[in-house]
Each structure stands twice: as structure tokens, then as C-alpha cells.
């Protein structure tokens, strides 16, 4: 009989913890980054991203025999809201609208770093001659 109230107490404590844990805190503390730093061409290994001022861009991977001037580069529209970088891709012939979101970690004149939900990728800005 002694154990029963204790048992119930423990359960109540766990429930309280769980209920506390289930309550999310809606705090917007994400950093903001400047779009002007994003304009330009970035590379990570053989992977390249280019952001144009008109919020269009293209990306390619030279490992797959695609170059910047190639018609087959992937084209997208981009927007930067706080640390959320959105890419909306349109296909070549099959015009799919596929949106991808990335959380920007670092964005300055030389470095771009984002988290795509699976891994953090770091890019270096490519200087244009």
C-alpha cells in the first residue's frame, strides 16, 4: 500500500516532465545575413553555386562534366530570409518546382556555410578576374 502512492507520484512526475518537454518555446533568435554577401560564385570542391543579383542562380558540378556556361546547369530562384536560404529549382524539360531550404550558418565576403538538414557544407567564394 505504501508503494502505490509512490508509484503514482513517480508517474505524475514523469508526466509533468513529458508535458514540459512537449511544450515548445517559440523564440525567434535566428541570425540575419546580408544578401549582398551572397551575390557571386561559390565553390566546394567540384560543386559550384552562383547567385545573381536578380535572385536567380545556377549550380553545377564539374565532376559530372557540367560547366558554368553549359546549358545543362541547374537553374533556380533564391531568397534569403534571416538564416533561411530558399532555392526553388525548375527543371530543364520537365519543369518541376522543387524547393529546398538551407539554414545559413556563416555568410561573409569569403565564406558561406549552410546546414541542409543532413550535413553542414562550407563554400568559398570564387574570385572573378
Amino acid at each position: 500500500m505504501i508503494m502505490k502512492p509512490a508509484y503514482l507520484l513517480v508517474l505524475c512526475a514523469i508526466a509533468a516532465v513529458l508535458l514540459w518537454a512537449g511544450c515548445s518555446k517559440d523564440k525567434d533568435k535566428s541570425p540575419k545575413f546580408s544578401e549582398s554577401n551572397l551575390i557571386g560564385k561559390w565553390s566546394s570542391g567540384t560543386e559550384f553555386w552562383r547567385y545573381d543579383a536578380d535572385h536567380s542562380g545556377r549550380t553545377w558540378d564539374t565532376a559530372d562534366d557540367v560547366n558554368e556556361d553549359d546549358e545543362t546547369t541547374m537553374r533556380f530562384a533564391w531568397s534569403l530570409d534571416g538564416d533561411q536560404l530558399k532555392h526553388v529549382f525548375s527543371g530543364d524539360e520537365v519543369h518541376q518546382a522543387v524547393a529546398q531550404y538551407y539554414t545559413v550558418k556563416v555568410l561573409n565576403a569569403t565564406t558561406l556555410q549552410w546546414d541542409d538538414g543532413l550535413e553542414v557544407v562550407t563554400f568559398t567564394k570564387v574570385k572573378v578576374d
Partner: protein
Amino acid sequence: MKKWIKITLISLGSLVALLLVVFAVACWLIFTPAQLTKIVNNLSNRYVTCDTHFGSVNLTLFKTFPDAGVDIHDVWMVNPIQGAPSDTVAYIHDLVVGVDIREFIKNGNIVVRKICLDGVDANLFTSSEGQHNFDVIALADSSQLSDTTAFRLPEEVSLNSIKLDKVNGSYTDNQLGVRASLEDLEMDLSGSLLGESIDASLLMNIKKICYTQQDSVGADFIDCEASDVSVDVSSDGSFNNLQGRLQLSLPKGQFSMQGVAYVNDALASSSDDLLSIDIPFNYSNGSLSVDGAQLGLDQLKLSLTGRLQASSDVSYPSLLDADFSVSKVSVQDLLPYLPPQFAGFCSNMTIKGDVALSGHVEGGVGDTNVNVSYIGCDLMVQDGSFADMSMLPKPLRNISADVSAQLYLDSSATSVVNVRGLSATMGSSKVNLEGSLSDVLGQMNLDVRGTGSLQMVDVMSFIPDTMPLDVRGTAQLKLSAKATIDQLSQLDLNHIKLESNIDFNQLDVAYGDIHAISPALHLNLHTSAQRPVADKHCVVAAALLSDNLQLKMPSNQVDAKLTGTQLAVNLPDFSNLDKPIAAAFKLVMERTNVGVDSIGMDAEQLELNGSVRYDASQNDLIASINPNLSVTLGRTLFFMPDMPEALRMSSMAFDYKPGSCRLNDFNLHWGESDYHLSGSVLNLEDWLAHKSVLKADISLQSNYSDIDQLLSLISGMGSDPDTIEQMRREDDVPADAAPFIVPRDVDVTLHTNVKSCVAFDNKLSNLAGNISIRDGKAILDQVGFVCKAARMQLTGIYKSPRPNHLYLGVDFHLLDIDIEELIDMIPYVDTLVPMLSSFSGQANFHLALEGYLDAKYAPKTSTLLGSAAISGKELVVLDNETFDKISSLLMFKRSTRNVIDSLDVEMTLFRNKMEVYPFLFSMDKYQVCASGIHSLTGNYNYHVELLKSPLPLRLAVDVKGTMPNIGISLGKVVYNELYNPAKQDAIKQRTLEIKKMVREALESNVR
């Protein structure tokens, strides 16, 4: 008679005789030769201007009895002129002139009865200035020339005998370039003219006559010589009825004109007279007639009968009307007498035959010319032969001709030449012609008909040996033609009427490697003027008909048997070759074998109807021949390079005209595949010339198709193989890779309906939809099919900009497919959606994906972009370690049934990352929400949360890590209770967009 009369007459006679004797003695005493010679020399100085000398002049009675005469010896006439061959104009050895003594005694007139010349040498000369050395007669006083009374023939011509003997003479005229000479002339002219009655006879013999005339540059123009010339002319009767005969004999002679000797050695050595003339004539009432006159030139004899009658025509006061005939003569006997120039021309000829010529001539005869108004003649040639290897390959034999001509030179009627028959044989071939040439003096209308029996061997003898042509067989020829000579000379086919029919038998033609055999073949040729030609632009039509024609070409493996051949060719006027040449044909081939450049065809039945129209002004081949074809093929085998199996065609029928090809029926078997095609193809010729896009709209039906085999056939179609090979080298395409290169410059749509097929090693069935190839794009427009018992629909675009960079965009919709078979069919699905392998059962799968592939069809990950959706019910979750661990952490009961009531997952793919949007599924009493992202390389970040369970707890699990080191741990609860993730509806939206873009791609031009 009374005695006194008799005595009186005797007395008077004696007295007269005495007086004559006294007169003679007195003349002799008075006119001594010396006196007479002196008198004559004196007289000659008065009447002759040159130096003249008479040797002696004597009176004679005996040489001229009963007339008195003067006998003159040694008469010289000397008149030197510069350039003359001799100063002596004439020398007469002896001249006797008989004078009528009674007229002299009675009236004192000197009437000459007889002249005899013996031994005459004359040298007549005319200088280049026109001065004559024989112009020696002194002109009388002008008063003496004033007698203008008309000349009147005396009633009685007193001169009854002229004799010339040993007369030699020469004449040189430097003004005309003439030289003539006469040697040993003898002439005896005797006769009398008394009132209207004449009786005359002329005998003349000349040992030699020469005549030479030079042209303006001094070359001999005419040079002739005759020896032993004999002329005999006699006439008797009144002026109104005179009979006579002219005979001329010229045994030997030479004649040349402009260097051409017309009397050669053979003619000169002939035993017959070179020229003989025998003309009996009769002159009566102004009409001169001859009957049976003979003119002979060696063996050539000309008979002449006719008359010359006076007419009122001032220009031609006499009318000629005569018949002539040339006796039958052998040509070969005349040939030796041809001048050397002509003999050289025909030196290689062998000519034989008998020729006969007869005719009639009419016309007017003037003083200096003859105006022939009509000539009619008949020419017969028999047993002729002609051989000249330089002209004819074989001798012509059995030449015969029967030709008549009526020539109205005065145009009083239409002149005509009739060829009643003309035939010849060459080898075993024979040709016959007949016809006419009317209006000979006008436009000359030819109307000819001919037949021939030809051995093609004989015809082939005309073909040069250098031409690789050999023709055997026979031919029967029928020909008719009507045309004017001008039309023929100008080859005016618009107006020439021509009809020709040739029946070939057992024809065997070999031209190089081409061999044609036909037991019977008919060829017709006619012009539009004869009868209408099908093509109004053409003037000549040729038609070839045969029920049995076999064509062989071993080098190209052609062997065709044509059971019905109709070939019609229309030709334009040759004078304007810019006009098109048209040919219509109908060919029925029973069996055809063709092989060209490793491409072979073996057809059992081929029917070809159509026409071609050759236009030389066009440069392009198709445009220049402008074909219009209707082709029907029976069972046929096609052999093509790089095709291990033959194409078996059960039937084919198509119509072709420039710019359009209508495929009516095309049943093809290739390996296990069968194809039934119908539709249309446009711009084929422009596409072949690389000028335009090939357009085709074809319906394809098949019971079974090997798509891989078909793709290999059409891969790169229309592209230059060298270009493709160069692209492969530049793009580093592995040798074992054979990417499908979409044909360029084509716009082809296939409306497919295939019961079963194999594509990329997958067996498909009930395939239906449109497949288009449009300028480098292969488009599948909602092609439905069944694979592994699943219904599928595929919309896709395939491009091959580079052999190692191939674009593929697909919208792939599979209904009710077994998940295990789906993964088996498309292993890449397991890479895209790894969780799918954890389920078992029927599911719907929808994938919209695009990206680039390498030459071996491996995806280039960095180019992938897509979205997918999976839905299913009653899916069984397969036991595995991951599921066991998750279910343990979520505190699933052991007894939980591992069946998912429903599953509806949506996801997007970018490059190597697949993002799965939050989705719900229920399992037994549990409801779970899951979402996450994973890479195609096996890196996971998923969140699984329990939304509903028998437990009063909210649990969540995070699945993170890289396979196989997956970390599964409790995670934060992020969803509200009873969370219902909003439908992303992305697939639906994207599918609509894909379909829209595919539709736009199909409807728009290739970009």
C-alpha cells in the same frame, strides 16, 4: 530525027568544041602561071593586110573537071605578133578552087563549085591584149559597108564539094587562156542545096585534137585530148522533111577538169570506143525528132528517142520531148572507170549490182541554154551488194531498189519520188522500205514505211567493241514516218509523224554487269504529231511491254523476274532539252533479289507503278527526276549491315510523290518482333538533302516488339556516322557503351499499340501511346503499359546533346505494383526510397524525375531533380533490425500486427538528397508520423514520432547516421497530438506542370 537536023547539030557541036579549044589555048597563052601568080599576089596585097605570098597559081581543068579551076601552091601568110608561137599565120601547100566556067563565060561571074585544101598548117593566135594574128583581111570602104539589105540564102548553093586533107592547126588565146590544136584533119563535105531540097554528106576524121583552158591563176581548168575522131553526118530531103544521121566515134581520149581526170587508165585501155554517138534524125515541119539514138560511153549505153519542136516561146523557141534509157549495166564494171579521186574514196568498197535507168525529159531549148520543165525517170537496182568495213560492219547483200521520179521543174504539178521498194540484207537481217517523197521541189514531204527482220547480233555489230554491251535475239521492226526534209534536218519532233513498233524475241541483253533476259518484249515509239502523247509537254513517247523480263546484276546481287512490265517514257523536243522528260511505268516483279552495299532485298512480289519526270534545270536528284510512285511489295526479306537478323516483310504498300510518302500498309518482322505501320512521311527528299526536317506521322501496331532492337536501328538516324564517331571520341564515350542518339532533323510521331514488348530488359505489355522524335528529342506522351502485372504510364523526354551527357525527364506512374517487383524492375527506386524495401504489398508509385545520364545510362547525381509519391494500403512491414529497434523504443507491444493500414508518402529529390515530407501511417493501435532526409549514399536523418498509442505517453525517435551505423535514439516530440501534416500536394502540382510542359514540348517546334 531528020538528017538536016542531025547534020546541023553535029556542025554546031564541032564549032563549039573548036571555040572551046581556041579559048583554052588563048587562056593558056594569056593566063600563064607567072602572069596569074603575079595577079594574085597583087590582089592579095589589096585584100590581105599581112605579108602574103602565093608560090604559084595555075589554071587547071583536070582537077576540077567539068569546071575550070585554079590550083595554088605554097601560100604563106606571115603576121608576126609578139608572144605568138610562130610568125606564120598559115601555110597552104595546095589549094584548088573549081569555078563554074559557063557562068564565067555567060555572065562573067566567078562561081566557086569546089574547094580542096591539101597540106595546111595554121597557127592562130590572140594576144592577151586581144590582138589576133589572123585579123588580116583589109576592111572595105565604109561606103561598101553601107549595104544593109537582109541576108538571103541563095536559091542554089553552088559550092558542092569541100575537101580538106592533112590539115594541122593550133590556136592560142592568151586572153582566155585557151590552147587548142588539130592534127591531121581530113574532111569531105559534099552535097547540094537546091531550092527547098538539100542533100549533104560530111565525113571527117581527125587524128588528134587537144584543148586546154586555164583558169585565172594559170592552172589547167580543162584539159582534153581526143584521138582518131570520126564524124559522119548525112542528110537528105527538103527543109520541111529532112532525114539524116549523125555518127561520131571517139575511140581514145582524155578529159580532166580542175585536176580531176575523168578518163582513167582502165577507161583508156577499154576495147570499146570511149565515146560513140549514133543519132538518126528527122526534121519535119519545124520538128526535129530522133528515134533510137545511141550515146555510148564505153559500156554505158544511152538510148534516146524524142523530138525537138518549134514553139512560140521567144526565149525557148524549141520544145524538147524525149525518152531516154540506160541499158542494164553492172556497177562493178563501171567502177574501174571512176576518176582516181573517186576511186580512192571507194577503194575500200566492194560494190556490185545491176542498174537500169529510163526516163523522160521535156523542156524548152534556147540558143544558149536548155530549160528542162519535166524529168521523169525509173531506176532499178538488182542483185546489189555493198561492203565497206569502214562504214558498215557487215556487207549489205541482196540490195534491190525500184525508184521512180516525176520532177516538174516548171512547178506545173507536184514533183514526187516514189520508192516502190528498197530492200537490203545484212548478215541475217533484212530491211524493206517503201514510200514517197512528194513536193520534191518544194518542202519535200517524206512518207516512208519500213519493215525489218533483225538479228540483234547484226545490230550489235554497229556497237563499238569498247562498249560493254552485248545483245542477242531477234526483232521484228515496223516503221512509218511522215515529215518534211526541213523537219528532219531540224529534228522537229513536234511535226514529224513517226510510229515504230519493235517486237523482240528471245532478247538477251548484257551491259557490263547488268543482264536482262526476255522471251518477248514489245517496244513502241511514236511522236505527238502521229498520235497524242500522255504528257502534253512531251513530243515523243516510248512504251515497253513485257510479260516476262528477268534482270540480273551479280555484282549488286540483283535478280529480279518481272512478270508484267509496262514502261512508258515521254521525251521533250530535243531542240529544247530544258523541258522535262517524263516516264511512266508499271513493273510487276515476280521475284526480286537486290543487294547494294551490303543492303539486300529478296522480294517475292513487287509491283511498281508510277512516273518520273526528269527536269535538267533542277540540281537536286529527287527534284530533277520528280518521281511519283506507287509500290506494292509482297513477302520480302531485307538484309542490312549491322543487323544480324533479316527484316521479314509480309507486305508493304506505299505511295510516293515529291514531298510526301503515304505508307498504306507495312507489315514487318524482325527477329521475334512484328510491326504493322501505316501513316505518312513528308519532306523525305529535302531531309536527305539536309534542307528540311523529316516529318512523319505513323501508326505502329505490334504483337511483340523488341524496343532495344528498334532503338539500335534508329539510333543516330539522319546523322553522319563520322560525326557521331567524332562526338564519341570528344566525349570520351567508353567503347562498350552504346547510347541511343536521338535522330536529328526529324519530326516523327509514332502512335503505338503494342501488345507486348521488351524494353531495357523489362517485359512490358499493352503498350499504347504516342512516341515522338523531334529534332533531337524523343518524347513519350502518356504511354501506358503493363509491367509485372502493374499498370504503368510513362511520359518522358530523352535528349542526347552529347553521347556522354544524355538528358532524361520522366513522369512515371505505376499503379498497383508489387513493391518487391518494383524494386526488381527499377533498382534505382531502392536507392531513392530505401524505406520502401521495408514494406511488402501493392503500392502506387509516381515518380517525376529529370537529370542527365552518362553513356552507360548511369545518372549524374549532381543533375538530378525530382519528386516522388508512394501510396499503399495493407502494407506489411518486414521484420528487420531497424524496425525492431524503433518499435522497441516506441514501446510497441509484441502482439502488434505489422500491417500498415495506409501509407501516403511524398518526397523531393535534389541531387543526392531525398527529403521525405511528414506522413502518417497507422499500425494496429498506433499512429505514427515520420519525416526526414537522406542521401543516396546512405546518410540518414529521420524523425519518427508516435502520435497515438495505447500508452499515455508521447514518444519520438531520431534515426541518424550512415548505413550501416545508424543511430536510433529517443528524440524530442515535435508534433502536436493528433498532428495531421498538411498535404504538400507537390506531386500533383508538379505532375500537372510536367504534363503541361510535355504537351508544350509536343506542340511546339523543337528548340
